[in-house]
């Protein structure tokens, strides 16, 4: 057994230190060591986006990032999207527009959609669809997800 790596990072704004195997993914660290099970493993190979997290302001598949790589960086997960008991407009609109059914892809979509809107506050339908093409959903057919993102964008532009 290889010696574990000591990692010092910031997760959802909080300072977090952990030990992990050198070959352990950030997704496994989040889920198995830190109890942050909101990010999901749908494939383990970066094809489904269910593990999407923010890493220094960029959306990444946490199954393709090593736990050790988070050292000194800022990580954002779905658990950090709401502000206390106040939901982010995306979260509100996903519920209002019925943009989720089973909900397992939803955390990944919320993270990726937030990153999309932070970059592009007034996206066209095509830009939304391409911006979220890295997130698989099998239940909804994406229709209501796109509508929810459009509605959240509109609300965020107002505020």
């Amino acid at each position, binding site marked *: 057994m290889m010696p574990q790596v000591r990692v010092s990072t910031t997760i959802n704004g909080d300072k977090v230190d952990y030990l992990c*195997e050198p*070959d352990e993914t950030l997704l496994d660290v989040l*889920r*198995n060591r830190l*109890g*942050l*099970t*909101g*990010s*999901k*493993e*749908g*494939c*383990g*190979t970066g*094809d*489904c986006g*269910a593990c999407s997290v923010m890493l220094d302001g960029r959306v990444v598949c946490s199954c393709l990032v090593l736990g050790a790589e988070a050292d000194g960086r800022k990580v954002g*997960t*779905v*658990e950090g*999207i*709401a502000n206390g008991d106040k*939901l982010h407009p*995306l*979260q509100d609109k*996903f*519920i*209002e*527009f*019925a943009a*989720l*059914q*089973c*909900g*397992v*892809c*939803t*955390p990944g979509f*919320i993270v990726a959609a937030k990153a999309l809107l932070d970059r592009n506050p007034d996206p066209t339908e*095509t830009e*939304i*669809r*391409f911006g*979220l*093409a*890295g*997130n*698989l*959903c*099998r*239940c*909804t*057919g*994406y*229709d*209501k*997800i*796109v*509508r929810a993102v459009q509605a959240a964008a509109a609300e965020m532009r107002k505020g």
Partner: protein
Amino acid sequence: MPLDSRLDPATYKFKVVGTRPSRPDGLDKVTGRAKFGADANAPGMLVGKILRSPHPHARIRRINTAKAAKLPGVKAIVTAEDFREGDPSLRDVLHNVMARGRALYDGHAVAAAAATTSSIARKALQLIEVDYEILPHVTDVDAAMKPGAPILHSDMITANVDPAPKKASNIAARHEFGHGDPEVGFKAADLVIERSFKTEATHQGYIEPHACLASVGSDGQGELWVCTQGHFMVRNACAELLGMDVSKLRVTASEIGGGFGGKTTVFIEPIALALSRKAGKPVKLVMTREEVFRASGPTSSSSITVKIGVKKDGRITGAHADIRFQGGAFAGSPVSLGAMSAFACYDLDHVKAVGYDVVTNRPKQAAYRAPGAPMVAFAVESVLDELAKKIGMDPIELRLKNAAKEGTRSSYGPKYNRVGLSQCLEAARKHPHYKAPLGPNQGRGIAAGFWFNFGGQTCVSLNINVDGTVVLAVGTPDIGGSRASMCLIAAEELGIGYDNVRAVVADTSSLGYNDISEGSRVTFSTGLATIEAARDAIGKLCARAAKIWDIPADAVVWENGHAKPSGPNAGNFEPLSLAEIARTAAKTGGPIAGHHEVNADGAGVSFAVHMTDAEVDRETGRVQIKRYTVIQDAGKAIHPSYVEGQFQGGAVQGIGWALNEEYIYGKDGRLQNPGFLDYRIPVASDLPMIDTVIVEVPNPGHPYGVRGVGETSIVPPLAAIANAVSAAAGVRLTELPMSPPQVLKAMDAESGAKGRH
């Protein structure tokens, strides 16, 4: 339970049913709080991993686990010996869970280990020595039926054939349905078309892999946390396979990240329990995505020949389908359902559908949303499309002329009750999509589809809290938004607010048996049980009010959430609200609850019509769906947003199945594309908005008229898209998926000597 005569849908105004409130599990799902199969942990938990055969067909001469058992950190190893051959009806499930003597497909489980970390568990698998004797394999359905094909089961004699064959084959059974004589029908036709079609196996594609956490104590009591469509089924199956009393195993259904039929059986759960029992510690077992593709339950691949004859005026005079499905290494493909549903949309005097259930060296199939129906509808609706074009008739007109109605004798036997196919066809004809102009290289396709919908064993417990809020315990895992619908139904019956009802999925120790969430049965069955349980509770609430007022119980009625005297003669009392009666429940007789246990029946069939515009890129063969409309009869939409969600989800799975998804087997019999990169399901950028029209022709067998909606929506898309692509490409496509190389090949073959430019 029949349609409630008070609730004439034309005039009755539901209070909350039919509105679109927020789903109760929504908050947890958008914040990441919701707990799915792999999200549970237990102190001292071990990680389980499964060793799988790399060979599509092999005799297992010996399994030596000695080296693996010695590896530090390994706490238990299991093989087929650790499971019980008991109930014969579970024999194939058992042999699929773990290979017994022979590995029958690439990915078939042969052993499993539990260790303190996942890397030790993986190392343990590498140390298990399996001595295989490789056998010849077969993966194609037609090849498996040919004489001389490698035989999987030496005792497989084709059932339903008289006289029975003398030799074993790979054909498990023959099924036949229909009435009249298609040959008579064909002789009377002006035009007969016969075509053959092929579809490849596809996977339900749920984003959440199978996952469970098992914990068995030395006293034989066990707990299982699992993502499943039926936790009572899981309990019963696992108890049987492990030799436990049913009451000793408590199964809790987690939130489920998609099922679509693929989680209606057991794969890894008995293994996790067996490992936990041996190790004396909890074991978490999660499938990787590769394991999901190789070793869970994809749907069948098919080879189908359809022959239909029509008169010039559009009347279908005869129809015949020869349907061949391979369902993996064990009998039980849904070919009989395919044969039964093949011509179910039409009113026919002469119809016959014959189905063959074939085995091959592939994973054991599991249900996939309207099992058996989409492939057969693809074949039948394609031929009808061709017939319509040849006789110069509008495709909707052709279908209207032959549409099944109330009293029509179905192609599978019984006469239909009130059904909504004509209404869907009329709605399609009137829809603006139908007349929208098409651009270059675009084609429009329409198709009709049918599904049976089922009832089943169901029970609910409705408990009234001291503050007048209600908790409804159901036993059917929520795979489509049913908790929201149940709260709407309970609120409607009780006359209280939607937010005052909370629905929970109870574990197997807290509620009576419930059949699996399948067959589009939940809104219908659990809804019906909820209505009855609410009415049961209302009876008790009225009885309490009667006691409080000191009048006979039958002098009290329930109206708008209140108990009232039934008339001026009963007495002059102020109505008592549910909350008021609940507040004094302790003093008036104790806790107030309603129950209902039933084998729900009266489920109504549902029909759908899909319409789609496809554009073909003549350079690359790529198909883009430009527009898609789903029109489906829901009977009564309890929560319209989630009915639309089912329509859209089913349509998009159909789009993937039609255009891109397929299981690719190499000559070596191994699955070549067990991952989401090469098993390409639709992504957001592939699709347009999916328009929906909810038609409501009440089901006479349900108090509100509800029909199941979950499955019918995947039946028409394969055909609708094939019809659209064929129109756009100028050539009939008869094999799925219509991936770019296939479309290109078909267009090139059509233009032949002319060349492409």
